[in-house]
């Protein structure tokens, strides 16, 4: 079913909308959540909560594209749960991706203080704008979608080793960018 038809079902408050949404994007959503949480049950709950969030948001929202809208809800809910479950050993792909950033980009000395996520996201967007399309996709697939190297390599047609090298370079470039912007010292 086309996105526009699914959205129409939401508008007429037909619960078939959830069924269609799940049939079309359920796998993508579940994978995204699972790679952050490494727990089937938690992922399932986050995806269901995301469907509920979508139900509440449409109408009045008429998201286009629908998948991006849905992925953002799923990721936000999954990240919230990720941080809420701090006592649980997760060992998810998201953990691994985050540890890469922590190792290569975080610095003991920083001036961001109470810097807000919104402000940092603008700096990250500036950094992304400076990259080639391919590198931007590699960065996003790793640090937004928490894709494995193998998954990224399949998507962009490079070897896993090449992906690993590129990501190392990208993290260094991000660090340089944040230093240049005065966020890291």
């Amino acid at each position, binding site marked *: 079913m086309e996105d526009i038809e699914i959205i129409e079902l939401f508008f007429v408050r037909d619960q078939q909308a959830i069924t269609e949404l799940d049939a079309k994007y359920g*796998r993508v959503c579940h*994978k995204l959540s699972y790679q952050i949480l490494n727990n089937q049950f938690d992922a399932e709950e986050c995806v269901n909560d995301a469907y509920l969030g979508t139900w509440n948001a449409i109408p009045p929202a008429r998201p286009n*594209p629908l*998948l*991006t*809208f849905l*992925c*953002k809800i799923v*990721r*936000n809910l999954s*990240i919230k749960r*990720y*941080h809420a479950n701090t006592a649980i050993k997760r060992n998810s792909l998201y953990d691994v991706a*985050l*540890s890469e*950033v*922590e190792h290569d*980009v*975080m*610095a003991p000395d*920083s001036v*961001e203080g109470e*810097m807000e*996520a*919104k402000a*940092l*996201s603008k700096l*990250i*967007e500036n950094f*992304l704008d400076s990259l*080639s*399309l*391919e*590198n*931007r*996709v590699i960065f*996003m*697939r790793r*640090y*937004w*979608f928490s894709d494995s190297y193998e*998954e990224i*390599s*399949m*998507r*962009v*047609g*490079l*070897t*896993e*080793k090449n992906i690993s090298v590129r990501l190392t370079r990208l993290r260094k470039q991000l660090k340089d960018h*944040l230093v240049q912007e005065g*966020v*890291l010292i």
Partner: protein
Amino acid sequence: MTPKLFSLAMNEISDRYIEEALSYQVRAKSNWGKSLLRFALAACLAIVIGFGTVLAVSAEAREIVFGWIKEQYETFTHYEYYEEEKNDNSDIDISALFVPHRLTEVPTGYKEIVGEFDEEIGQQFTVYQNEEGKMCFVSAASGGNTFVESNGYTIQPIEVAGVTGELYIPDDPTMDSTIVWMKENMFFYISGYFTPEELVYYAERLQPVSAQETESVDKVPLSELEGEE
């Protein structure tokens, strides 16, 4: 900056980056193979295509089953080196089985501009370019992966270098063609704006050479070709 702050900042990233990453499925230009991906949805057909003659070369190798697996997806073909260790104690360096290759005759009007060799997995990659900017990609590998776009192409078996390879003929004649074949445990790939006859002609001229010979040409890193810093 904490990982949590980074994580929350990524949540605030503009939709356009997410959409871009969601929709990106094909590389902007040819490389190891112009891959497309719909991996999660694609049906998988795995065929072990070849087992190497390397079995006769190394005693250690006899403990390992060699071959290349071909997986046909919805829009691309994935060729992957396959290795199954039968003896847990065996420790063979697959890249050591790599034999450097080079075109003994470069296509008319083309000049070698990139030459890379990944020692870890034994993949050699060479790019030639003519004055019009058209590129010809040549690779020889004893390991790793290669992806070949099959969407919009007709795949035909073809005799090349004494074995049966595969020819990717584009439905759109303005697109480039590709020939792949496996011989002596290595995988070969040539892609360019050539007729099938020309591709076979150049494939026959991809010959083993010494490592020194492969270093005799001034080349630029692949990253520069891709416009990276």
